[in-house]
């Protein structure tokens, strides 16, 4: 897939203990790229550097294989940006703010008036278009921020935690918008703490920690590379020690732990992607024990992320 933006060895120092020291991101054209990290890991700093709100201390950014300069308005015109809780002048209406920003982008008045209505419709704010922004809820502000980031139909949109603190309805609207962007082959850099959301939406992710990129790539590859153990949870009607020893002796089993003695449950870890359920059932049968259930503990981005940052 063609690369739209490449960030190499990006650096920004606030003081000795904070900032970013080595951020690398490769964003493919037409994809939603997840950007993950704990609070203070450097996600917002990276995004602000791209938008020219902060100056970088080192590293380079390329856009469409050409050097990207955040202070260049020509470069920045291709990118829309929305923060988690965007602030707009409270005395203006949603419609006015879109028109004013559109005019700054030199879109003709008639064109931006039309575009403003479409964008407000898209983010479900059509009915509140003439309401003063000071009276908007957090969800409405967040959606207005996304509408602002879409003015002028930029190729790439940077969204910094767009669903943070939103109610389920607003979150769903934002997720639908992301689906719509994906359909329209927009490139999105999405920072979020909701890892399930990222797993569902994004093709690729970059995981950063303490100002450094820990891992980057497709979600599938990251899960494969970061986790070489597979877990199963099995429940029996009885748990004789002899059966436990036999299970421990099975080929490929690395670890067996009793997780609930009362319910006779065990957790098994294997180093290979093999289905051990039939073997467990056979051992149980041999020991006169009934296996009530045996399920593979599903691997999630959240687990991979937590493992990566704890290592």
């Amino acid at each position, binding site marked *: 897939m063609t690369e739209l933006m490449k960030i190499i060895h990006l650096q920004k120092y606030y003081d000795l203990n904070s900032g970013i020291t080595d951020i690398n991101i490769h964003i493919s054209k037409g994809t939603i790229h997840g950007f993950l990290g704990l609070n203070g890991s450097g996600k917002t700093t990276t995004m602000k550097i791209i938008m020219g709100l902060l100056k970088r201390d080192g590293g380079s950014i390329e856009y469409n294989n050409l050097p990207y300069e955040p202070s260049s308005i020509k470069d920045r015109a291709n990118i829309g940006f929305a923060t988690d809780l965007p602030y707009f002048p409270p005395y203006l209406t949603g419609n006015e703010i879109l028109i004013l920003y559109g005019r700054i982008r030199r879109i*003709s008045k008639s064109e931006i008036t039309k*575009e403003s209505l479409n964008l407000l419709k898209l983010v479900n704010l059509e009915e509140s278009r003439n309401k003063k922004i000071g009276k908007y809820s957090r969800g409405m502000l967040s959606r207005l921020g996304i509408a*602002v980031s879409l003015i002028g*139909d930029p190729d790439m949109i940077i969204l910094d935690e767009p669903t943070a603190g939103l109610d389920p309805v607003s979150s769903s609207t934002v997720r639908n918008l992301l689906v719509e962007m994906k359909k329209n082959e927009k490139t999105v850099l999405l920072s979020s703490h909701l890892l399930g959301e990222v797993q569902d939406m994004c093709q690729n992710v970059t995981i950063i920690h303490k100002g450094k990129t820990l891992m980057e790539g497709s979600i599938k590859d990251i899960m494969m590379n970061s986790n070489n153990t597979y877990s199963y949870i099995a429940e029996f009607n009885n748990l004789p020690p002899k059966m436990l020893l036999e299970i421990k002796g099975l080929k490929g089993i690395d670890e067996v732990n009793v997780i609930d003695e009362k319910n006779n449950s065990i957790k098994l870890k294997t180093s290979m992607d093999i289905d051990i359920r039939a073997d467990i059932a056979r051992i149980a049968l041999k020991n006169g024990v009934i296996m009530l259930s045996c399920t593979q503990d599903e691997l999630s981005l959240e687990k991979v992320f937590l493992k990566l940052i704890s290592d």
Partner: protein
Amino acid sequence: MRIVTTMLDKNSFSFNRMWSIINYELRGDLRRKKVLFVISFVFVVIVLVGVFFRVFFPKGSIVGSEYLWSEMVLVLTNGFISGIFPMILGGIISVDSIAWEIDKGTIIPLLSQPVKKSEIYFGKITEKLLLVSAISMLLVILSIFIAIMLVGGQKHLIWAIPTALCLMLEIMVFVSFTFMMGALIKQSGFMMLILTGIYFSILIGSVFVMLKQGFHLWMTLIPLEGINNLLVSLQHFFLDPNGKMFVNYNLGPGMSGGAWFPASELLLYSFIGASISAFVFTIIGYILFLRLEIRG
């Protein structure tokens, strides 16, 4: 929609984009209750000053005469306490432009648009120049109108234009100072308090220097201090172009002094001093704004 990128191809300063910022700023100023407050304040002060003159100065005296309109403008802008009026006016209308926008975060979506910082900064200050010009004109016109109502026909009305111009310059010195301070401290909460503190510190400091060294014309070039002589020297100049005026300074008993100077010279120096102040504050503010980083 692709028209956008083609129109943004040029990376140089664009007056069109600056015009959009002027519109953005003007829309904000018209919506903010502060501007309405300022205009109402100007109106009330003018009426009060006019009534004060009518009551305490009989018709036919200097300030109760056909020059009343210029006295009314002058009393608002000249002297230790009344000189604070242009500062309050300039500060109130411009504190929201830079300091408030940074403080409240509304500058982020604005800076994220494809617009240069220079276009934002000069767009905002140009809008203030237009607004201050309108307020100055309004103040002078109101003075003339109220003076006619109080004491009858007024003379030398042609001087209304330079009077409004000097008033505008005085207020613009404080506007540019507020812009500079906004880009420096990035907080709007205590801005008026800080402005007042700096203004009085400079004023008191200047008087101490004058008490020690005597008054020299170059002292009108001291930022914020020199503008106090602008309108008073203009008034003296239009009453008598070759006349002299007495510049006095005092901080209380035994701490006063003064000297006679040709009004034309004082006017020229004050005008140059105020212009330099406005220019220097604007440029320093612009440099600080260029270096602005949005953290947090």
